[in-house]
């Protein structure tokens, strides 16, 4: 007879992905690169949003990783504007994961400090579940999708560090219930800033770019602070710095 034994494992299946993501994050923080994971459904204007933000950024070099199931149309578009852009094609996979980004980042030469935007696969579900090494998750949402989206896709709204509400130039033509939308967002995510923008007119992006620059500087401040704290043995203070909002 075989000896049958039940053994407890309690092993988190995400650990490996999260471990690699943490490594990427540390590496890029050291190189003074602030990483933004850009998420949103297909057609919400992720690439258009990036172009508008980058146009408004001052003093920080933009880098972009474009995640798409197929094609490099957005990469060519961004490169034509002189933006350092790198393509990942997943050929079917519905999200980017930490190993994919880790491999890609190895081959990028970050000549100067800046912001790395990683445009995830157009999908309002899976990207929210996987860390890829980002400092910040940016969710692009639109008034054309309808005001019920926080209720239907709660995880994406819960995990977002910043929400961009795009296509607001179309509000006069739509029945978007902004109060219902904001109530849903607030229930899921008390503090998240929501920026109203229009990719068509360019309105609202200066504020988004300013927010990113502030966060990028804070992340670096926290990082440097952290090193100093390690020397002195104090850890409580960088926590305060990390959570300073305007």
């Amino acid at each position: 007879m075989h000896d049958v034994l039940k053994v407890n494992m309690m092993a988190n299946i995400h650990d490996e992905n999260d471990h690699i993501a943490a490594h990427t994050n540390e590496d890029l923080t050291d190189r003074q690169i602030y990483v933004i994971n850009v998420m949103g459904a297909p057609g919400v204007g992720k690439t258009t949003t990036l172009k508008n933000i980058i146009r408004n950024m001052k003093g920080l070099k933009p880098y972009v990783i474009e995640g798409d199931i197929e094609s490099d149309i957005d990469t060519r578009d961004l490169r034509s504007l002189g933006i350092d852009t790198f393509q990942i094609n997943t050929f079917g996979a519905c999200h980017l994961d930490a190993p994919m980004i880790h491999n890609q980042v190895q081959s990028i030469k970050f000549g100067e400090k800046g912001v790395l935007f990683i445009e995830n696969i157009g999908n309002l579900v899976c990207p929210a579940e996987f860390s890829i090494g980002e400092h910040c998750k940016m969710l692009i949402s639109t008034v054309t999708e309808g005001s019920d989206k926080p209720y239907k896709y709660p995880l994406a709204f819960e995990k977002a560090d910043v929400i961009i509400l795009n296509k607001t130039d179309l509000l006069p033509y739509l029945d978007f219930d902004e109060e219902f939308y904001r109530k849903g967002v607030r229930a899921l995510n008390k503090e998240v800033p929501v920026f109203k923008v229009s990719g068509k007119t360019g309105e609202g992006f200066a504020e988004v770019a300013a927010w990113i620059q502030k966060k990028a500087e804070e992340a670096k401040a926290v990082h440097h602070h952290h090193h100093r704290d390690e020397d002195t043995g104090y850890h409580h203070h960088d926590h305060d710095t990390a959570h300073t909002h305007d």
Partner: protein
Amino acid sequence: MHEFPITQQIIKLAEEHATELCASRIKSIKLVVGDYSGFVGDSIQMYFDVISQGTLCEGAVIEIEHVTPKMKCTGCGELFEREFLSFACPKCGSDGEPTEIGKEFYIESIEIER
């Protein structure tokens, strides 16, 4: 389709653990899967049957314990399952906030033969 790499990961973790315990085969794997984890039990089983061939996991049964997501009321503290298109607490009507209940995704235990 994103269950494929995660199923590989489950097999890898279970095999590593079973090897340490000098197991000859794994009879069953118990997973705890929250409905908000984003993983579908049936898909995991389907990939598992294919990928586990030739490993200690071949022929193992996957048992899945599902966890229904719960919100916590910001008014009265009640844990509740939300209704569609609402986050309101059924007891007091205040909005709930997200909790970790329903996001679980881990291997609870394995049954091994030696």
